[in-house]
């Protein structure tokens, strides 16, 4: 075994040295370092801007609102003029890890009003045109480059030997074929992961020193886990490259097949998975929810108008003691259904996308960074529970004198205003990303075994 191990290492070392001498490894290192630094810089500034935005919004919540009026009282009649002007609704704080994996954090850049119902405002339109393209975060750069470079290191692993005629000589040695595959896989993995690890380390150091991010121990563990996921993703593509290399005899064909496979796996499979999730779990739009709520409100108002035809002007909300909580319940149910359908669609999208390596990386990295599906679902859950607090206070206030009712409502508003979304605990993030890790492991193992199986049957003559 020791002898086998030393043979594997011997071949791997020769491959690694060859990769360095033909500038493959240095090119990968330079490209990954440059792009990861550029990505870290751009996303760190984006995070800082969003944090500033949030802190301005938070400070603004304390400003007094204008709610005043003037009455023109004349001998033959009177009219009044009232004016109200509030502060912008609160927004949620961005997550520091969005500088590495932005995930769904950008979607949370929106003002949300929580009263008897939850009103989601449109999200901010900054950075300009940012939402038009993919966020160029670390996860995105790794998704594109680590996979491509992995294939670059591995796709000619066997074809080169076949073309040069050295494979026959190698296999005439007392050497198992699977050991050869293992040594090629080891060499490509080290050639890819060593520059990737150094580039990623430089990126983390840059974020810590230049932007003061990722300073805690837990942050470093998360950063390490994201690297682990990226490394596993790279290994998947190394094995895919080696597999392609075993099924064809020419590097040119292997390269074309590899790029086709790359486009299918990286660009198409995860997108198709998300498309499928959208088809399987259609969700109502926010306008449909608003229309449903409005319809329910108008129906109740109509009933009230019929019950009391003497009422002069139709109010905007029900006035009777029975109908007010009834409308609250209808609004609660409709909003909960809407949120549940969104959560369900997100979960399905993650489940289906996790079946492909690029989808597993995207969702797994965002889960580990606390900017993924679970974080988004807990963001919605925060509003849902805050709305319940408000509804409870509103219902209680109905039976109380106006002064006491107002006091209860103020207390509830204070409670809701102080509620903050907590960062998902590391354990929960890890649990969420288990499927992503498992999926990547399965892909790596499958293509590794497939390459061994194919190579065992290769007729060297």
């Amino acid at each position, binding site marked *: 075994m020791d002898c086998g191990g030393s043979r594997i290492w011997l071949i791997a070392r020769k491959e690694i040295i060859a990769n360095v001498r033909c500038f493959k490894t240095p090119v990968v290192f330079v490209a990954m370092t440059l*792009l990861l630094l*550029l*990505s870290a*810089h751009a996303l760190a*500034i984006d995070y800082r*801007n969003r944090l*500033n*935005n949030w802190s*301005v919004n938070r400070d*603004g919540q304390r400003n007094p609102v204008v709610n*005043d*009026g*003037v009455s*023109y*009282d*004349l001998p033959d*009649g*009177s*009219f009044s003029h009232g004016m109200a002007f509030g502060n*912008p609704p609160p927004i949620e704080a961005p997550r520091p890890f969005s500088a590495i994996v932005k995930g*769904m954090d950008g*979607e949370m850049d*929106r003002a949300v009003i929580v009263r008897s119902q939850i009103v*989601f*405002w449109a999200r901010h339109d*900054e*950075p*300009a*045109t*940012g*939402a*038009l*393209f993919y966020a160029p975060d670390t996860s*995105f*750069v790794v998704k*594109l480059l680590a996979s*491509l470079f992995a294939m670059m290191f591995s*796709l000619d692993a066997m074809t080169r030997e076949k073309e040069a005629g050295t494979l026959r000589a190698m296999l005439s040695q007392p050497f198992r074929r699977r050991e050869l595959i293992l040594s090629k896989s080891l060499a490509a993995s080290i050639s890819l992961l060593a520059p990737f690890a150094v580039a990623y380390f430089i990126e983390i150091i840059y974020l810590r020193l230049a932007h003061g991010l990722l300073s805690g121990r837990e942050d470093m563990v998360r950063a390490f886990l994201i690297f682990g996921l990226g490394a596993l993703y790279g290994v998947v593509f190394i094995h895919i490259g080696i597999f392609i290399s075993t099924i064809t005899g020419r590097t*040119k064909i*292997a390269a*074309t097949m590899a*790029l*086709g496979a790359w*486009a299918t796996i990286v660009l198409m499979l995860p*997108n*198709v998975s*998300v498309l499928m*999730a*959208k*088809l399987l779990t259609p969700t109502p*739009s926010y*306008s*449909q929810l*608003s*229309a449903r709520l*409005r319809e329910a409100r108008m129906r109740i108002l109509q009933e009230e108008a019929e019950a009391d035809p003497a009422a*002069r*002007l139709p109010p905007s909300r029900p006035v009777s003691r029975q109908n007010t909580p009834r409308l609250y319940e209808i609004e609660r149910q409709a909003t909960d259904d809407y949120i549940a359908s969104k959560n369900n669609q997100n979960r399905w*999208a993650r489940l289906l996308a996790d079946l492909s390596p690029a989808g597993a990386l*995207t969702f797994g990295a965002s889960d580990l960074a606390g900017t993924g599906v679970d974080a988004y679902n807990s963001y919605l859950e925060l509003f849902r529970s805050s709305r319940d607090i408000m509804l409870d206070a509103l219902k209680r206030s109905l039976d109380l004198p106006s002064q006491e009712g107002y006091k209860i409502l103020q207390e509830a508003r204070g409670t809701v205003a102080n509620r903050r979304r907590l960062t998902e605990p590391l354990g929960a993030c890890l649990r969420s990303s288990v499927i992503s890790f498992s999926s990547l492991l399965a892909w790596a193992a499958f293509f590794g075994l497939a390459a061994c199986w194919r190579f065992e049957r290769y007729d060297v003559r």
Partner: protein
Amino acid sequence: MFRTILSRELQETGVSPTLLSALVALTILVLPSAYIQARYYQRVVEDYAVRQSISQAEDNSRTIVLIRPITPLAPFFNGAYDSLPDEFRVWNDSATTNTPSGDLTPLDWLFPKIDLCFIIGVLLTLLTILLTHGAIAGDRDRGSLKFILAGPVRRRTVLAAKLTAVILPVTVILIYVVLLYTTVVMVFSGGTVDLSGSDLNALGALMVVALTVLVATAALGVAVSASVRRSSVSLFVCASIWIVTILIWPSLGPYMASSFKPVSPPEAAQRDVVSKEKELIHAELAEHRKTAADLKERQVGVEFAWRRYLEIRRKWIERRNEEIGRLVEERRKQVRDQRGAARRISLLSPYAAFREVLGSLCGTGLESYDEFLAAVEQYRQSEFIPKGFDLRSRQKPWLNATDPDDRLQLRPLQAPSPALSGRLAAAAWPLSILIAEMIVLIVSSVVIFERCDVRV
């Protein structure tokens, strides 16, 4: 000789597994993407009607909600339609607008919806790279290049034949993809996608622009292929350039622009506006209080007081519109400048330039969005404020009765809808960059191939 090389190359490309598997993969991807886009468009059109009915029922003399109508070409290129607010609440006494509601679309942040622009700009350019990377290097690999060039043929002719042999099948695939996509969108959108003659012309122009991008990509592939000796190396050089220019650079552009050309956070701009609004509201209320006390003391009639009240209101509405409008306009200018910087950075990528052109052609780009914002402001100034104030002045609140006709009657907002020439003129800058890129790449490939030493 051109025809001989062309027919040989076409035969080779036609039977290559790359082309056939790309056709299958594209068909598999186009069908669900176009279906999703058609359904999404249908829902947006239905939503638009729902939103209009809600907003019209709640419009009053002080505030109304304006919603951006969707263009029929949106399923072909979503552009900014999805990512920027399309609903605005405008006020008659303030130049501020807010965006009352927005759907929750978190998945679009991880995987934006696939539209025709993505299929052409990303997947067809990749296919072009796959077909061209071996145009010269492949012949070198096989050793056949020296035999081709040994004949009585000019290198330019060889190059032109090789380029044409890639562009022709790619054009056929482009036409196939556009037709398939259009058919699926038309069939599954429930009749909501109604393409006018101008829209069909825009689709035709889209194909011409797409062809420009594909020719530029083919020229890049040939240039790289002529500069290296092995086709596998050529493929990875092409793929690396493609990834950086098509996928990474356009994404980085806006973020880099916000780094080079920072603007104050939106909430800070909002804070300035809010504080100015409050100041002006307090001043107006103070004047109303003084006037109310004065009129009460003079014992004037309520109708006279109402006219006086309206005069004060009109004066303060004008002042608030002017002062807040200045702040809002300053902010818009900052954002426009930042977007301009983002555009200049992004346009280095042919994909970003392609998207810019498509944004103008389909009416879903940032230019069209800015035009809509200008139309909203124009509508507010020329339609809503005068009619809203007119309605208010006809009301008699002291009578505690509402006139049945006392509703705001506004003409509908006409969103700008330029003709094809106007759309092309708006896209002149990115289009000229695309054409320049194509010419530079073709010339580079000719120069590189002319100087290529076939003996090594």
